[in-house]
Protein backbone atom coordinates (compact mmCIF):
# COMPACT_ATOMS: atom_id res chain seq x y z
CA UNK A 1 0.00 0.00 0.00
CA UNK A 2 2.99 2.29 0.50
CA UNK A 3 3.59 2.14 -3.24
CA UNK A 4 0.17 3.58 -3.95
CA UNK A 5 1.11 6.65 -1.96
CA UNK A 6 4.18 7.28 -4.08
CA UNK A 7 2.31 6.92 -7.38
CA UNK A 8 -0.87 8.79 -6.69
CA UNK A 9 -1.13 10.64 -3.39
CA UNK A 10 -4.84 11.27 -3.66
CA UNK A 11 -5.70 7.60 -4.16
CA UNK A 12 -3.32 6.73 -1.34
CA UNK A 13 -5.16 9.00 1.05
CA UNK A 14 -8.46 7.47 0.05
CA UNK A 15 -7.29 3.87 0.38
CA UNK A 16 -8.49 3.20 3.95
CA UNK A 17 -11.93 4.58 3.15
CA UNK A 18 -12.19 2.59 -0.08
CA UNK A 19 -11.14 -0.62 1.69
CA UNK A 20 -13.61 -0.02 4.48
CA UNK A 21 -16.41 1.24 2.25
CA UNK A 22 -18.34 -2.01 1.65
CA UNK A 23 -18.32 -2.88 5.34
CA UNK A 24 -19.20 0.64 6.43
CA UNK A 25 -22.12 0.80 3.99
CA UNK A 26 -23.32 -2.67 4.97
CA UNK A 27 -23.13 -1.99 8.70
CA UNK A 28 -24.77 1.41 8.28
CA UNK A 29 -27.67 0.19 6.14
CA UNK A 30 -28.35 -3.12 7.87
CA UNK A 31 -27.34 -2.41 11.46
CA UNK A 32 -27.37 1.29 12.36
CA UNK A 33 -30.27 2.45 10.18
CA UNK A 34 -32.62 -0.35 11.34
CA UNK A 35 -31.90 0.56 14.96
CA UNK A 36 -32.66 4.23 14.28
CA UNK A 37 -35.82 3.28 12.38
CA UNK A 38 -36.86 1.08 15.28
CA UNK A 39 -36.49 3.94 17.73
CA UNK A 40 -38.45 6.19 15.37
CA UNK A 41 -41.16 3.56 15.09
CA UNK A 42 -41.42 3.41 18.85
CA UNK A 43 -42.09 7.14 18.94
CA UNK A 44 -44.79 7.02 16.28
CA UNK A 45 -48.48 6.65 16.76
CA UNK A 46 -50.26 4.19 14.50
CA UNK A 47 -53.86 3.89 13.55
CA UNK A 48 -54.71 0.23 14.23
CA UNK A 49 -57.48 0.25 11.61
CA UNK A 50 -55.52 1.66 8.66
CA UNK A 51 -52.02 0.74 9.82
CA UNK A 52 -50.79 4.23 8.95
CA UNK A 53 -48.19 5.63 11.36
CA UNK A 54 -47.31 9.24 12.01
CA UNK A 55 -44.40 10.59 13.99
CA UNK A 56 -45.68 12.17 17.17
CA UNK A 57 -42.52 12.02 19.34
CA UNK A 58 -44.55 9.82 21.57
CA UNK A 59 -42.00 9.23 24.33
CA UNK A 60 -44.84 7.94 26.47
CA UNK A 61 -44.70 4.69 24.47
CA UNK A 62 -41.27 3.98 25.96
CA UNK A 63 -42.44 4.56 29.51
CA UNK A 64 -45.61 2.55 28.81
CA UNK A 65 -43.54 -0.35 27.53
CA UNK A 66 -41.30 -0.05 30.57
CA UNK A 67 -44.11 -0.01 33.12
CA UNK A 68 -45.97 -2.89 31.51
CA UNK A 69 -42.88 -5.07 31.18
CA UNK A 70 -40.55 -4.00 33.97
CA UNK A 71 -41.15 -7.19 35.97
CA UNK A 72 -40.23 -9.28 32.94
CA UNK A 73 -37.23 -7.09 32.16
CA UNK A 74 -35.88 -7.39 35.71
CA UNK A 75 -36.51 -11.14 35.61
CA UNK A 76 -34.59 -11.42 32.33
CA UNK A 77 -31.74 -9.36 33.79
CA UNK A 78 -31.70 -11.67 36.81
CA UNK A 79 -31.59 -14.85 34.71
CA UNK A 80 -28.91 -13.42 32.44
CA UNK A 81 -26.85 -12.34 35.46
CA UNK A 82 -27.14 -15.78 37.07
CA UNK A 83 -26.15 -17.53 33.82
CA UNK A 84 -23.22 -15.15 33.29
CA UNK A 85 -21.85 -15.61 36.80
CA UNK A 86 -22.13 -19.39 36.43
CA UNK A 87 -20.31 -19.20 33.10
CA UNK A 88 -17.53 -16.99 34.49
CA UNK A 89 -16.95 -19.43 37.34
CA UNK A 90 -17.18 -22.53 35.12
CA UNK A 91 -15.02 -21.23 32.29
CA UNK A 92 -12.24 -19.45 34.19
CA UNK A 93 -10.44 -22.70 35.13
CA UNK A 94 -10.58 -24.09 31.59
CA UNK A 95 -9.42 -20.79 30.09
CA UNK A 96 -6.56 -20.76 32.62
CA UNK A 97 -5.66 -24.34 31.85
CA UNK A 98 -5.66 -23.83 28.06
CA UNK A 99 -3.60 -20.66 28.40
CA UNK A 100 -0.92 -22.04 30.75
CA UNK A 101 -0.94 -25.84 30.53
CA UNK A 102 -2.23 -26.95 27.13
CA UNK A 103 1.06 -26.19 25.34
CA UNK A 104 1.00 -27.07 21.67
CA UNK A 105 -2.56 -28.37 21.81
CA UNK A 106 -4.00 -24.94 22.61
CA UNK A 107 -5.74 -24.59 19.27
CA UNK A 108 -7.25 -28.03 19.53
CA UNK A 109 -8.86 -27.25 22.88
CA UNK A 110 -10.08 -23.86 21.68
CA UNK A 111 -11.69 -25.63 18.76
CA UNK A 112 -13.32 -28.13 21.11
CA UNK A 113 -14.96 -25.18 22.87
CA UNK A 114 -16.47 -24.08 19.55
CA UNK A 115 -17.44 -27.50 18.25
CA UNK A 116 -20.96 -27.48 19.78
CA UNK A 117 -21.71 -24.47 17.57
CA UNK A 118 -21.73 -26.62 14.47
CA UNK A 119 -25.06 -27.98 15.62
CA UNK A 120 -27.66 -25.26 15.72
CA UNK A 121 -28.44 -24.13 19.23
CA UNK A 122 -32.12 -24.78 18.58
CA UNK A 123 -31.30 -28.48 18.18
CA UNK A 124 -28.99 -28.48 21.21
CA UNK A 125 -31.70 -26.90 23.34
CA UNK A 126 -34.37 -29.29 22.06
CA UNK A 127 -32.10 -32.23 22.96
CA UNK A 128 -31.62 -30.84 26.47
CA UNK A 129 -35.39 -30.74 26.72
CA UNK A 130 -35.53 -34.45 25.95
CA UNK A 131 -32.67 -35.27 28.31
CA UNK A 132 -34.22 -33.28 31.16
CA UNK A 133 -37.84 -34.32 30.69
CA UNK A 134 -39.44 -36.22 33.56
CA UNK A 135 -39.25 -39.55 31.71
CA UNK A 136 -35.80 -38.68 30.33
CA UNK A 137 -32.47 -40.21 31.11
CA UNK A 138 -31.22 -37.78 33.76
CA UNK A 139 -34.25 -37.60 36.04
CA UNK A 140 -34.78 -41.37 35.71
CA UNK A 141 -31.25 -42.04 36.90
CA UNK A 142 -31.58 -39.61 39.79
CA UNK A 143 -34.85 -41.21 40.81
CA UNK A 144 -33.41 -44.72 40.65
CA UNK A 145 -30.60 -43.56 42.93
CA UNK A 146 -33.26 -42.09 45.26
CA UNK A 147 -31.62 -38.71 45.06
CA UNK A 148 -34.85 -36.95 44.04
CA UNK A 149 -38.50 -37.66 44.70
CA UNK A 150 -40.70 -39.40 42.10
CA UNK A 151 -42.53 -36.21 41.13
CA UNK A 152 -39.33 -34.20 40.70
CA UNK A 153 -39.26 -31.93 37.63
CA UNK A 154 -36.62 -29.79 35.99
CA UNK A 155 -38.39 -28.70 32.80
CA UNK A 156 -40.49 -25.58 33.19
CA UNK A 157 -38.49 -24.35 36.16
CA UNK A 158 -36.31 -21.27 36.39
CA UNK A 159 -33.40 -23.60 37.04
CA UNK A 160 -33.87 -25.18 33.59
CA UNK A 161 -33.93 -21.80 31.87
CA UNK A 162 -30.80 -20.52 33.63
CA UNK A 163 -29.00 -23.82 33.04
CA UNK A 164 -29.92 -23.68 29.35
CA UNK A 165 -28.64 -20.11 29.04
CA UNK A 166 -25.43 -21.03 30.86
CA UNK A 167 -24.91 -24.02 28.59
CA UNK A 168 -25.53 -22.18 25.33
CA UNK A 169 -23.43 -19.10 26.05
CA UNK A 170 -20.44 -20.67 27.81
CA UNK A 171 -18.06 -20.38 24.82
CA UNK A 172 -18.76 -16.63 24.67
CA UNK A 173 -17.36 -16.39 28.20
CA UNK A 174 -14.49 -18.83 27.87
CA UNK A 175 -12.90 -17.37 24.72
CA UNK A 176 -12.43 -13.74 25.88
CA UNK A 177 -11.16 -15.03 29.24
CA UNK A 178 -8.65 -17.21 27.41
CA UNK A 179 -7.45 -14.30 25.28
CA UNK A 180 -6.78 -12.13 28.32
CA UNK A 181 -5.12 -14.93 30.32
CA UNK A 182 -2.93 -15.86 27.36
CA UNK A 183 -1.42 -12.38 27.46
CA UNK A 184 -0.59 -12.64 31.13
CA UNK A 185 3.15 -13.03 31.62
CA UNK A 186 3.73 -16.22 33.68
CA UNK A 187 6.85 -14.60 35.13
CA UNK A 188 4.58 -12.25 37.07
CA UNK A 189 2.92 -15.21 38.75
CA UNK A 190 6.29 -16.71 39.63
CA UNK A 191 7.53 -13.39 40.97
CA UNK A 192 4.46 -13.11 43.14
CA UNK A 193 5.10 -16.62 44.44
CA UNK A 194 8.76 -15.81 45.14
CA UNK A 195 7.63 -12.83 47.16
CA UNK A 196 5.63 -15.19 49.39
CA UNK A 197 2.19 -14.28 48.10
CA UNK A 198 -0.28 -17.10 48.51
CA UNK A 199 -2.37 -18.37 45.61
CA UNK A 200 -5.39 -16.35 46.59
CA UNK A 201 -3.36 -13.17 47.00
CA UNK A 202 -1.71 -13.73 43.61
CA UNK A 203 -5.09 -14.29 42.03
CA UNK A 204 -6.57 -11.19 43.65
CA UNK A 205 -3.65 -8.83 43.12
CA UNK A 206 -2.16 -10.01 39.82
CA UNK A 207 -4.53 -12.15 37.77
CA UNK A 208 -7.78 -10.29 38.40
CA UNK A 209 -6.53 -6.73 37.77
CA UNK A 210 -4.58 -7.67 34.64
CA UNK A 211 -7.46 -9.68 33.21
CA UNK A 212 -10.11 -7.10 34.06
CA UNK A 213 -10.72 -6.03 30.43
CA UNK A 214 -11.12 -9.66 29.36
CA UNK A 215 -13.43 -10.46 32.25
CA UNK A 216 -15.55 -7.42 31.48
CA UNK A 217 -15.69 -8.33 27.79
CA UNK A 218 -16.62 -11.92 28.67
CA UNK A 219 -19.32 -10.60 30.96
CA UNK A 220 -20.86 -8.38 28.26
CA UNK A 221 -20.61 -10.97 25.48
CA UNK A 222 -22.48 -13.47 27.66
CA UNK A 223 -24.83 -11.23 29.58
CA UNK A 224 -26.27 -9.21 26.68
CA UNK A 225 -27.15 -12.15 24.40
CA UNK A 226 -28.54 -14.10 27.37
CA UNK A 227 -30.63 -11.09 28.39
CA UNK A 228 -32.33 -10.97 24.97
CA UNK A 229 -32.62 -14.73 24.46
CA UNK A 230 -35.97 -16.42 24.28
CA UNK A 231 -35.31 -19.84 22.81
CA UNK A 232 -34.10 -21.34 26.10
CA UNK A 233 -37.13 -19.99 27.91
CA UNK A 234 -39.54 -21.15 25.21
CA UNK A 235 -38.10 -24.66 25.00
CA UNK A 236 -37.01 -25.33 28.58
CA UNK A 237 -39.12 -22.92 30.62
CA UNK A 238 -42.76 -22.70 31.56
CA UNK A 239 -45.44 -20.07 31.99
CA UNK A 240 -44.01 -18.43 35.09
CA UNK A 241 -40.58 -17.50 33.74
CA UNK A 242 -41.31 -15.53 30.56
CA UNK A 243 -38.36 -13.46 29.40
CA UNK A 244 -38.37 -10.14 27.57
CA UNK A 245 -37.27 -11.76 24.28
CA UNK A 246 -40.44 -13.85 24.23
CA UNK A 247 -42.58 -10.76 24.66
CA UNK A 248 -40.78 -8.91 21.84
CA UNK A 249 -41.04 -11.89 19.55
CA UNK A 250 -44.77 -12.22 20.20
CA UNK A 251 -45.40 -8.50 19.70
CA UNK A 252 -43.70 -8.57 16.30
CA UNK A 253 -44.57 -11.97 14.91
CA UNK A 254 -47.82 -12.91 16.64
CA UNK A 255 -49.78 -9.75 17.41
CA UNK A 256 -48.14 -7.64 14.66
CA UNK A 257 -47.75 -4.72 17.07
CA UNK A 258 -44.65 -3.09 15.53
CA UNK A 259 -44.71 0.13 17.59
CA UNK A 260 -45.12 -1.79 20.86
CA UNK A 261 -42.43 -4.29 19.90
CA UNK A 262 -40.13 -1.49 18.79
CA UNK A 263 -40.56 0.37 22.06
CA UNK A 264 -39.65 -2.72 24.09
CA UNK A 265 -36.72 -3.54 21.77
CA UNK A 266 -35.48 0.02 22.15
CA UNK A 267 -35.48 -0.43 25.93
CA UNK A 268 -33.58 -3.72 25.66
CA UNK A 269 -31.06 -2.10 23.30
CA UNK A 270 -30.75 0.88 25.67
CA UNK A 271 -29.96 -1.38 28.62
CA UNK A 272 -27.40 -3.26 26.50
CA UNK A 273 -25.84 0.01 25.36
CA UNK A 274 -25.26 1.09 28.96
CA UNK A 275 -22.97 -1.92 29.38
CA UNK A 276 -21.19 -1.37 26.07
CA UNK A 277 -20.62 2.35 26.70
CA UNK A 278 -19.44 1.65 30.25
CA UNK A 279 -16.81 -0.65 28.80
CA UNK A 280 -15.66 2.01 26.34
CA UNK A 281 -15.46 4.62 29.11
CA UNK A 282 -13.61 2.46 31.64
CA UNK A 283 -11.30 0.47 29.39
CA UNK A 284 -11.25 2.25 26.02
CA UNK A 285 -13.05 1.13 22.91
CA UNK A 286 -9.86 0.09 21.13
CA UNK A 287 -9.24 -2.93 23.34
CA UNK A 288 -12.80 -4.11 22.73
CA UNK A 289 -11.98 -5.80 19.44
CA UNK A 290 -9.22 -7.82 21.08
CA UNK A 291 -11.65 -10.03 22.93
CA UNK A 292 -14.17 -11.05 20.34
Amino acid at each position, binding site marked *: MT*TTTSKSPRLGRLTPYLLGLPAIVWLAV*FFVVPLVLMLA*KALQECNPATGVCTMSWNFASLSDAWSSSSTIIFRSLGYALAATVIDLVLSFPIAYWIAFYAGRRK*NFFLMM*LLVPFFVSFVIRTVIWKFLLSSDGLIIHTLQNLHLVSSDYQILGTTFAVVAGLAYNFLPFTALPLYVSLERLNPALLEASHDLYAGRITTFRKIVLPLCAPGIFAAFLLTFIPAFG*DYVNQQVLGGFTNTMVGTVIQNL*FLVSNDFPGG*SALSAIVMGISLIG*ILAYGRLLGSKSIGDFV
Partner: protein
Amino acid sequence: MSAKRGRWLGLYSWLLLAYLLVPIVGMIFFSFNDVLAGRPTVTFEWNGATLRWYRELTNVVGLPEAFWLSIRLALASMVAATVIGTLLALALVRYEGKRFRGRTAIDQTLFMNIAAPEIVMGASLLGLFASYHVARGFLTLLLSHTVFSIAYVTVTVRARLQGFDRHLEEAAGDLGATPLTTFRLVTLPMIMPGVLAGAMMAFALSLDDFVVSNFVSGTTLPFPVWVYGASRMGVPPQVFVFGTIIFLLGFAGAIASLAMSRRAVKSV
Protein backbone atom coordinates in the same frame (compact mmCIF):
# COMPACT_ATOMS: atom_id res chain seq x y z
CA MET B 1 2.34 -23.49 38.54
CA SER B 2 2.73 -26.95 39.88
CA ALA B 3 2.23 -30.03 37.74
CA LYS B 4 -0.27 -31.39 40.25
CA ARG B 5 -2.46 -28.34 39.94
CA GLY B 6 -2.25 -28.66 36.16
CA ARG B 7 -3.52 -32.22 36.37
CA TRP B 8 -6.57 -31.24 38.38
CA LEU B 9 -7.31 -28.33 36.07
CA GLY B 10 -6.86 -30.63 33.09
CA LEU B 11 -9.30 -33.16 34.48
CA TYR B 12 -11.80 -30.40 35.12
CA SER B 13 -11.35 -29.03 31.60
CA TRP B 14 -11.93 -32.39 29.98
CA LEU B 15 -15.09 -32.85 32.06
CA LEU B 16 -16.35 -29.43 31.00
CA LEU B 17 -15.68 -30.18 27.32
CA ALA B 18 -17.51 -33.50 27.74
CA TYR B 19 -20.46 -31.65 29.26
CA LEU B 20 -20.55 -29.29 26.26
CA LEU B 21 -20.73 -32.31 23.97
CA VAL B 22 -23.56 -34.10 25.84
CA PRO B 23 -26.42 -32.99 23.55
CA ILE B 24 -24.35 -33.64 20.45
CA VAL B 25 -23.47 -37.17 21.50
CA GLY B 26 -27.16 -37.62 22.33
CA MET B 27 -28.13 -36.39 18.88
CA ILE B 28 -25.74 -38.73 17.03
CA PHE B 29 -26.67 -41.70 19.21
CA PHE B 30 -30.42 -41.23 18.87
CA SER B 31 -30.21 -40.66 15.11
CA PHE B 32 -29.87 -44.46 15.01
CA ASN B 33 -32.89 -45.05 17.25
CA ASP B 34 -35.86 -46.86 15.78
CA VAL B 35 -39.45 -45.66 16.16
CA LEU B 36 -41.95 -48.40 16.82
CA ALA B 37 -45.35 -47.07 15.83
CA GLY B 38 -47.20 -44.00 14.65
CA ARG B 39 -45.85 -40.88 12.98
CA PRO B 40 -42.06 -41.06 13.36
CA THR B 41 -40.93 -38.54 15.96
CA VAL B 42 -37.83 -38.54 18.12
CA THR B 43 -38.06 -40.30 21.46
CA PHE B 44 -35.30 -40.87 23.93
CA GLU B 45 -36.34 -44.38 24.78
CA TRP B 46 -34.08 -46.87 23.08
CA ASN B 47 -36.07 -48.97 20.60
CA GLY B 48 -33.18 -50.68 18.86
CA ALA B 49 -30.63 -49.55 16.30
CA THR B 50 -31.61 -48.77 12.73
CA LEU B 51 -30.28 -47.00 9.67
CA ARG B 52 -33.80 -46.26 8.56
CA TRP B 53 -33.59 -42.48 9.04
CA TYR B 54 -30.39 -42.34 7.04
CA ARG B 55 -32.08 -44.24 4.20
CA GLU B 56 -35.28 -42.17 4.42
CA LEU B 57 -33.37 -38.92 4.79
CA THR B 58 -35.41 -36.97 2.28
CA ASN B 59 -38.83 -38.34 3.21
CA VAL B 60 -39.96 -35.45 5.40
CA VAL B 61 -41.71 -32.69 3.47
CA GLY B 62 -39.85 -29.39 3.74
CA LEU B 63 -36.88 -30.65 5.70
CA PRO B 64 -34.39 -31.32 2.85
CA GLU B 65 -35.30 -27.95 1.33
CA ALA B 66 -34.67 -26.23 4.66
CA PHE B 67 -31.33 -28.00 4.97
CA TRP B 68 -30.16 -26.99 1.48
CA LEU B 69 -31.35 -23.47 2.02
CA SER B 70 -29.24 -23.26 5.18
CA ILE B 71 -26.17 -24.62 3.40
CA ARG B 72 -26.53 -22.21 0.46
CA LEU B 73 -27.21 -19.33 2.84
CA ALA B 74 -24.19 -20.17 4.98
CA LEU B 75 -21.90 -20.39 1.94
CA ALA B 76 -23.16 -17.19 0.34
CA SER B 77 -23.06 -15.12 3.53
CA MET B 78 -19.64 -16.60 4.35
CA VAL B 79 -18.18 -15.42 1.04
CA ALA B 80 -19.74 -11.96 1.28
CA ALA B 81 -18.80 -11.42 4.93
CA THR B 82 -15.26 -12.74 4.46
CA VAL B 83 -14.46 -10.40 1.55
CA ILE B 84 -16.08 -7.35 3.13
CA GLY B 85 -14.74 -8.05 6.62
CA THR B 86 -11.18 -8.71 5.45
CA LEU B 87 -11.05 -5.42 3.53
CA LEU B 88 -12.23 -3.54 6.62
CA ALA B 89 -9.64 -5.32 8.78
CA LEU B 90 -6.89 -4.19 6.36
CA ALA B 91 -8.12 -0.60 6.58
CA LEU B 92 -8.32 -0.67 10.38
CA VAL B 93 -4.87 -2.14 10.98
CA ARG B 94 -2.93 -0.22 8.34
CA TYR B 95 -4.27 3.29 8.81
CA GLU B 96 -3.95 4.94 12.20
CA GLY B 97 -5.02 8.34 13.52
CA LYS B 98 -5.53 11.11 10.97
CA ARG B 99 -5.10 8.77 8.02
CA PHE B 100 -8.35 7.05 8.84
CA ARG B 101 -10.89 9.25 10.55
CA GLY B 102 -13.85 7.48 12.11
CA ARG B 103 -11.85 4.46 13.20
CA THR B 104 -13.11 4.72 16.76
CA ALA B 105 -16.72 4.91 15.61
CA ILE B 106 -16.17 1.80 13.46
CA ASP B 107 -14.53 -0.05 16.37
CA GLN B 108 -17.49 0.76 18.58
CA THR B 109 -20.02 -0.23 15.91
CA LEU B 110 -18.26 -3.57 15.48
CA PHE B 111 -18.40 -4.29 19.19
CA MET B 112 -22.02 -3.19 19.39
CA ASN B 113 -22.82 -5.42 16.44
CA ILE B 114 -21.25 -8.41 18.15
CA ALA B 115 -22.71 -7.72 21.58
CA ALA B 116 -26.19 -6.52 20.55
CA PRO B 117 -29.01 -8.88 21.54
CA GLU B 118 -30.00 -10.90 18.49
CA ILE B 119 -33.66 -10.26 19.12
CA VAL B 120 -33.11 -6.52 18.70
CA MET B 121 -31.16 -7.02 15.46
CA GLY B 122 -33.80 -9.37 14.09
CA ALA B 123 -36.69 -7.11 15.07
CA SER B 124 -35.04 -3.99 13.67
CA LEU B 125 -34.20 -5.72 10.38
CA LEU B 126 -37.79 -6.89 10.09
CA GLY B 127 -38.85 -3.27 10.65
CA LEU B 128 -36.46 -2.11 7.90
CA PHE B 129 -37.64 -4.67 5.35
CA ALA B 130 -41.28 -4.09 6.23
CA SER B 131 -41.07 -0.30 5.89
CA TYR B 132 -39.46 -0.55 2.44
CA HIS B 133 -41.72 -3.41 1.35
CA VAL B 134 -38.88 -5.81 0.72
CA ALA B 135 -40.34 -9.31 0.39
CA ARG B 136 -38.85 -11.67 2.97
CA GLY B 137 -36.92 -14.60 1.58
CA PHE B 138 -33.43 -15.68 0.59
CA LEU B 139 -32.26 -12.12 -0.13
CA THR B 140 -33.29 -10.70 3.24
CA LEU B 141 -31.75 -13.74 4.98
CA LEU B 142 -28.49 -13.25 3.07
CA LEU B 143 -28.29 -9.52 3.82
CA SER B 144 -28.98 -10.13 7.52
CA HIS B 145 -26.59 -13.06 7.95
CA THR B 146 -23.82 -11.12 6.23
CA VAL B 147 -24.24 -8.15 8.57
CA PHE B 148 -23.83 -10.19 11.74
CA SER B 149 -20.83 -12.09 10.34
CA ILE B 150 -18.78 -9.12 9.07
CA ALA B 151 -17.74 -8.00 12.54
CA TYR B 152 -16.52 -11.49 13.51
CA VAL B 153 -14.48 -11.80 10.32
CA THR B 154 -12.98 -8.35 10.81
CA VAL B 155 -11.79 -8.96 14.36
CA THR B 156 -10.42 -12.41 13.47
CA VAL B 157 -8.46 -11.15 10.46
CA ARG B 158 -7.32 -8.07 12.35
CA ALA B 159 -5.80 -10.23 15.08
CA ARG B 160 -3.76 -12.01 12.41
CA LEU B 161 -2.73 -8.77 10.67
CA GLN B 162 -1.40 -7.20 13.84
CA GLY B 163 1.57 -9.56 13.98
CA PHE B 164 2.40 -8.95 10.31
CA ASP B 165 5.88 -7.88 9.14
CA ARG B 166 5.34 -4.87 6.87
CA HIS B 167 8.91 -5.10 5.55
CA LEU B 168 7.88 -8.04 3.37
CA GLU B 169 5.43 -5.82 1.50
CA GLU B 170 7.96 -3.03 1.17
CA ALA B 171 10.46 -5.51 -0.22
CA ALA B 172 7.93 -6.66 -2.81
CA GLY B 173 7.29 -3.04 -3.78
CA ASP B 174 11.04 -2.36 -4.07
CA LEU B 175 11.32 -5.34 -6.39
CA GLY B 176 8.78 -3.72 -8.70
CA ALA B 177 5.59 -5.53 -7.71
CA THR B 178 2.41 -3.51 -8.11
CA PRO B 179 0.24 -3.11 -5.00
CA LEU B 180 -2.21 -5.65 -6.34
CA THR B 181 0.53 -8.21 -7.03
CA THR B 182 1.98 -7.57 -3.58
CA PHE B 183 -1.40 -8.17 -2.03
CA ARG B 184 -1.97 -11.34 -4.00
CA LEU B 185 1.48 -12.87 -3.54
CA VAL B 186 2.58 -11.56 -0.14
CA THR B 187 -0.22 -10.16 2.02
CA LEU B 188 -2.99 -12.63 1.27
CA PRO B 189 -0.96 -15.83 1.83
CA MET B 190 0.34 -14.42 5.13
CA ILE B 191 -3.09 -13.55 6.51
CA MET B 192 -4.77 -16.64 5.03
CA PRO B 193 -5.09 -18.55 8.35
CA GLY B 194 -6.92 -15.56 9.83
CA VAL B 195 -9.15 -15.25 6.77
CA LEU B 196 -9.95 -18.97 6.89
CA ALA B 197 -10.74 -18.81 10.60
CA GLY B 198 -13.01 -15.82 9.99
CA ALA B 199 -14.73 -17.59 7.10
CA MET B 200 -15.34 -20.68 9.23
CA MET B 201 -16.77 -18.51 11.98
CA ALA B 202 -19.12 -16.82 9.49
CA PHE B 203 -20.22 -20.20 8.14
CA ALA B 204 -20.91 -21.59 11.62
CA LEU B 205 -22.74 -18.43 12.76
CA SER B 206 -25.04 -18.56 9.76
CA LEU B 207 -25.81 -22.27 10.19
CA ASP B 208 -26.42 -21.79 13.91
CA ASP B 209 -28.59 -18.71 13.67
CA PHE B 210 -32.22 -18.93 14.66
CA VAL B 211 -33.37 -15.63 16.16
CA VAL B 212 -32.53 -13.25 13.31
CA SER B 213 -33.61 -15.80 10.69
CA ASN B 214 -36.95 -16.27 12.42
CA PHE B 215 -37.66 -12.56 11.93
CA VAL B 216 -36.48 -12.13 8.34
CA SER B 217 -37.27 -15.50 6.76
CA GLY B 218 -40.96 -15.13 5.93
CA THR B 219 -41.99 -18.46 4.43
CA THR B 220 -38.46 -19.41 3.32
CA LEU B 221 -37.44 -21.49 6.32
CA PRO B 222 -33.77 -22.23 7.08
CA PHE B 223 -32.98 -25.46 8.94
CA PRO B 224 -33.01 -24.13 12.56
CA VAL B 225 -36.27 -22.23 12.00
CA TRP B 226 -37.86 -25.34 10.48
CA VAL B 227 -36.70 -27.46 13.43
CA TYR B 228 -38.01 -24.95 15.93
CA GLY B 229 -41.42 -24.99 14.25
CA ALA B 230 -41.42 -28.79 14.12
CA SER B 231 -40.33 -29.14 17.76
CA ARG B 232 -43.79 -28.14 18.92
CA MET B 233 -45.39 -31.18 17.32
CA GLY B 234 -42.55 -33.65 17.64
CA VAL B 235 -39.21 -33.71 15.86
CA PRO B 236 -38.86 -36.15 12.92
CA PRO B 237 -35.79 -38.39 13.44
CA GLN B 238 -34.30 -37.16 10.15
CA VAL B 239 -33.55 -33.86 11.89
CA PHE B 240 -30.95 -35.69 13.98
CA VAL B 241 -29.47 -37.20 10.83
CA PHE B 242 -29.11 -33.79 9.19
CA GLY B 243 -27.73 -32.44 12.46
CA THR B 244 -25.18 -35.25 12.54
CA ILE B 245 -24.16 -34.54 8.94
CA ILE B 246 -23.66 -30.83 9.66
CA PHE B 247 -21.72 -31.61 12.79
CA LEU B 248 -19.38 -34.07 11.07
CA LEU B 249 -18.80 -31.68 8.14
CA GLY B 250 -18.05 -28.83 10.53
CA PHE B 251 -15.77 -30.99 12.63
CA ALA B 252 -13.87 -32.16 9.55
CA GLY B 253 -13.53 -28.57 8.35
CA ALA B 254 -12.22 -27.44 11.73
CA ILE B 255 -9.65 -30.26 11.88
CA ALA B 256 -8.54 -29.49 8.31
CA SER B 257 -8.07 -25.79 9.01
CA LEU B 258 -6.21 -26.64 12.22
CA ALA B 259 -3.84 -28.85 10.24
CA MET B 260 -3.44 -26.18 7.58
CA SER B 261 -2.59 -23.43 10.04
CA ARG B 262 -0.10 -25.74 11.77
CA ARG B 263 1.62 -26.32 8.45
CA ALA B 264 1.56 -22.59 7.68
CA VAL B 265 3.23 -21.86 11.02
CA LYS B 266 5.94 -24.42 10.32
CA SER B 267 6.68 -23.12 6.84
CA VAL B 268 7.18 -19.49 7.97
